[in-house]
């Protein structure tokens, strides 16, 4: 399982990373592996506002559809439009080109309350054990 040491993690297997006062979000390497080949990602509109932990979209493989939940609350400032034509980016590079949304956080401290990479790693270990 790959991890991004800079990112913070949720129990829904999402990550968020602070970039220029905004939070970039996506799903973890563990999540993309469980889903297998991603065939579609449904993303929100720029300008939509969500609370932390609210469903903002859906990621689909051939066999499953999973809701996507915001790691932090705030306004959507960008969505990854590449995913529309190339959903496989989520499998290939979940922490990079496979990012999903950017959020302008309503509470800048919210991100720090989430799991660190090490905490998430042991969380996944416990979940599987």
């Amino acid at each position, binding site marked *: 399982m790959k991890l991004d040491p800079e990112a913070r993690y949720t129990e829904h297997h999402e990550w968020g990373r602070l970039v220029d006062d905004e939070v970039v979000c996506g799903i973890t390497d563990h999540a993309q592996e469980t889903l297998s080949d991603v065939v*579609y990602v*449904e993303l929100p509109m720029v300008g939509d506002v969500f609370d932390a932990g609210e469903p903002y979209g859906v990621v*689909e*493989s*051939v*066999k*499953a*559809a999973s809701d996507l939940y915001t790691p932090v609350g705030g306004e959507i400032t960008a969505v990854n439009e590449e995913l529309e034509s190339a959903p496989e980016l989520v499998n290939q590079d979940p922490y990079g080109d496979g990012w999903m949304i950017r959020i302008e956080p309503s509470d800048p401290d919210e991100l720090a309350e989430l799991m660190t990479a090490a905490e998430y790693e042991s969380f996944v270990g416990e979940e599987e054990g």
Partner: protein
Amino acid sequence: MPYIPHSDTDRKAMLERIGVGSVADLFQDVPERVRFPNLDLPAALSEMGARWELESLAEANLTAGEASCFLGAGAYHHFVPAVVDALVSRGEFYSSYTPYQAEVSQGTLQSIFEYQTMICELTGMDVSNASHYDGATSTAEAVITAINVHRMRRKKAVISRFVHPEYREVIRAYTQGLDMTILDTAGEPEDIRGALDEETACLIVQYPDFLGRIEDLSPLAAAAEAVGALFVVVADPTALGLLRPPGEFGADLVTGEGQGLGLGLNFGGPYLGFFAARQKYVRKIAGRLVGQTVDTNGERGFVMTLTTREQHIRRERAISNICTNQGLMALAATVYMAALGKCGLRTVAELCYHKAHYAAAQIDGLDGFSVVRDKPFFKEFVVRCPMPVAEINEQLLRGYVIIGGYDLGEEYPELEDHMLLCVTEMNPRQEIDLLVSALKEVTS
């Protein structure tokens, strides 16, 4: 017992392997109180006996073939070439299940892919699903699609009152738990435009409408678009052999009853609900979709796709609970459309059009009758009668073995004593002339 193959020897050997003494022992889990009820049903018949009984029931009906049929109103007496039943009667087709295992279901899958293509062509739309139960449920699914496209933020559907009355009832039944507003009191285009607002998820009109009338739908399409509502057209596929497809008018969804495409009347079912959409709604529509792909050798093949929309994966978050389509009916329609082809379907539509207009002109000339001609019509038209429709129909049936038109008075109070007549390629000129003379006689 022709369908259960076990001999006594088989049964004994099987019970022994299972380790129980008798078949009845397999049902110990069933509460004794209710176990092995005596069913009060008639004793079994031989195949010959069953045939006699069913044949006598069939003979107790008057068929549209024995009579002269001028009844339409959502179910149509069209010609079905023999090749349709010959092909859908192949056991490999009809005794198979939903094509979950694609490698041994390519026959069903490819024929659905062909069906989807033909429906797109006929309606002028980008995508078609593999079908719904009938025209009404297909239209109800369109309402649900529309509220999903609007993410449940709009829950009002504006429906022309000249959409088939039973379709409107089915939409009400389907959406009764969803806290929706169904507005179906407006009929004329200007009234319909007035009913549209920013809460409206969709506008539904019928083409030709329930009274058989046709018109350019572009203004209504524009009006729906102006408020951000989906424009849904319920279409008669036979009419589309001749008329501009709803896609050209700007329809977002096209639904309708496919019964006229080779299915016969069958006393109301099974029929075929077709459903076509613009590309951008493909992930919001319900029902099966078949897509093209390749196998591990790179050969073309077909699979069910976008199944994550469906109930067996999404469960309570599925777009619809539908799990079957009308597989065999869709196959029949595919064979029918291929048999008639590019020219044949147009010929059928033209025969309907000219015969209906001939009949209308003749009836219009009768004393006491007049044809309502406020708009062009296709194969059905409204006739004002000099006496109650029920009485006329009764006399047509008894005196002339004619199945008369649909009595409009019950659904449309302003159309009391108005009859909706339907003429198709199945009505030769003699039948039309007989109808005209019979109408003259029963009212004189």
